[in-house]
């Protein structure tokens, strides 16, 4: 129902590039591909859509970055979790391309904890939900997870506790999020969170904080562009709960054996943040 035009293979500029960096040509191509989907479409932005022109082209093409509507007794909400990065580019006199480069680097350190909902949108969310009965279903779409998974890769929003304060008034909330490019499932109180696969490439599970409720996805074959990517079929069942079925090009989405599971190969992996992109100012010694 809600496609995520986060990444796609694009032939923009004559090159066969994977992924997109907010170039209007790339956004147009994404919109073009999504024309195939004939139902009503609503969109939320990802960071790759935004930081070239601070969302101008995206908003012109796809509308407001956050919204709400009701459908068959469900309140649907779209949140913008990506546009609140703190300005690291002005004092460094960066070009828009350089700014996007840093924002689009998952393990970049300059962007910092950029994912957030922000006070204005929180107030809006509060108002939007105050008129909705406590026991009726709410489905929320956001790019980043609405819980704390692994902050260094922004697998969270930094104000997730405030978001949760508002959402916990409701008995039946499902959060559907992107950004993690992996099978992910989590519950906080009554809120369930479901992570979406990417259509571009998969990401390894983070070294810390994988939710206990996650059934781990398979390890991926790096020689096959179509491996580890896919989509989801989401539906509301008769008990008003969201069912999710992951679909990959390969048959088995999950694996439990250590040698085959994407969590298994994390069991002994200690990782460290980068040095090279934090300059200037120069850093000496090791950074933990």
């Amino acid at each position, binding site marked *: 129902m809600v496609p995520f035009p986060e990444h796609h293979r694009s032939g923009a500029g004559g*090159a*066969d*590039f*994977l*992924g997109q960096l907010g170039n209007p040509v790339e956004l147009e191509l994404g919109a073009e591909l999504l024309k195939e989907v004939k139902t009503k479409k609503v969109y939320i932005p990802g960071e790759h859509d935004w930081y070239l022109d601070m969302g101008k082209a995206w908003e012109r093409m796809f509308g407001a970055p956050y919204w709400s509507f009701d459908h068959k007794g469900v309140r649907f909400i779209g949140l913008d979790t990506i546009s609140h990065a703190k300005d690291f580019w002005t004092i460094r006199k960066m070009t828009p391309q350089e700014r996007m480069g840093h924002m689009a*680097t*998952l*393990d970049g350190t300059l962007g910092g904890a950029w994912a957030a909902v922000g006070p204005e949108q929180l107030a809006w969310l509060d108002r939007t939900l105050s008129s909705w009965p406590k026991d009726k279903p709410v489905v929320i779409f956001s790019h980043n997870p609405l819980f704390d998974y692994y902050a*260094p*890769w922004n697998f969270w929003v930094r104000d997730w506790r405030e978001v949760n304060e508002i959402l916990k008034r409701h008995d039946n909330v499902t959060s559907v999020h992107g950004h993690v490019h992996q099978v992910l499932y989590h519950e906080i109180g009554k809120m369930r969170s479901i992570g979406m696969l990417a259509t571009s*490439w*998969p*990401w*390894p599970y*983070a*070294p810390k904080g994988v939710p206990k409720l996650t059934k781990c996805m398979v390890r991926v*074959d*790096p*020689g096959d*562009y179509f491996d580890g990517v896919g989509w989801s079929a989401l539906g509301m069942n008769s008990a008003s709960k969201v069912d999710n079925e992951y679909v990959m090009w390969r048959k088995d989405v999950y694996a439990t054996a250590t*040698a085959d599971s994407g969590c298994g*190969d*994390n069991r*002994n*992996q*200690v*990782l*460290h*943040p*980068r*040095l*090279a*992109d934090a300059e200037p100012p120069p850093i*000496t*010694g*090791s950074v933990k």
Partner: protein
Amino acid sequence: MTRQIWIPAGAALAVLCFVAFQAAAHKDKHTPEQLKVFEEVFLEQVRIGDLLFHGDADTQKKMGVQLSRTGMSCAMCHPFASDVHPHEFPKFQEQIGKFSTLRDMINWCIEKPNEGVKLDSDSDAMKALEAYIYWSNRGSKLEPGTH
């Protein structure tokens, strides 16, 4: 005849090595300044490797290497050099179909997903990539041979 020449030549070399080794041997305790220099030499390679791993165009140009032709850098799939598992090498690597080192697999990923130009296995760029990968995974337990 030749043998008689070779033996003294070998001995001379051994003496030479001994003299050189004495000069560089650990007879004196290390000063903090010395240790700092050692660390800086290492971290410089880590930084270069970090830039290569993250697809930095200038660094690749300077070193005359092309690690990718798809617009993808290593780090896009391996944030913080995760899932590279340097501590699990050497091992039998399915993709290559034989017993492989970390360097073999770095080259495989350059050629396969990245469609780049593989590195000479002893090149500066390869050593720098290796330095960054090990540095970023430090603290992981050595488990050679693990899939």
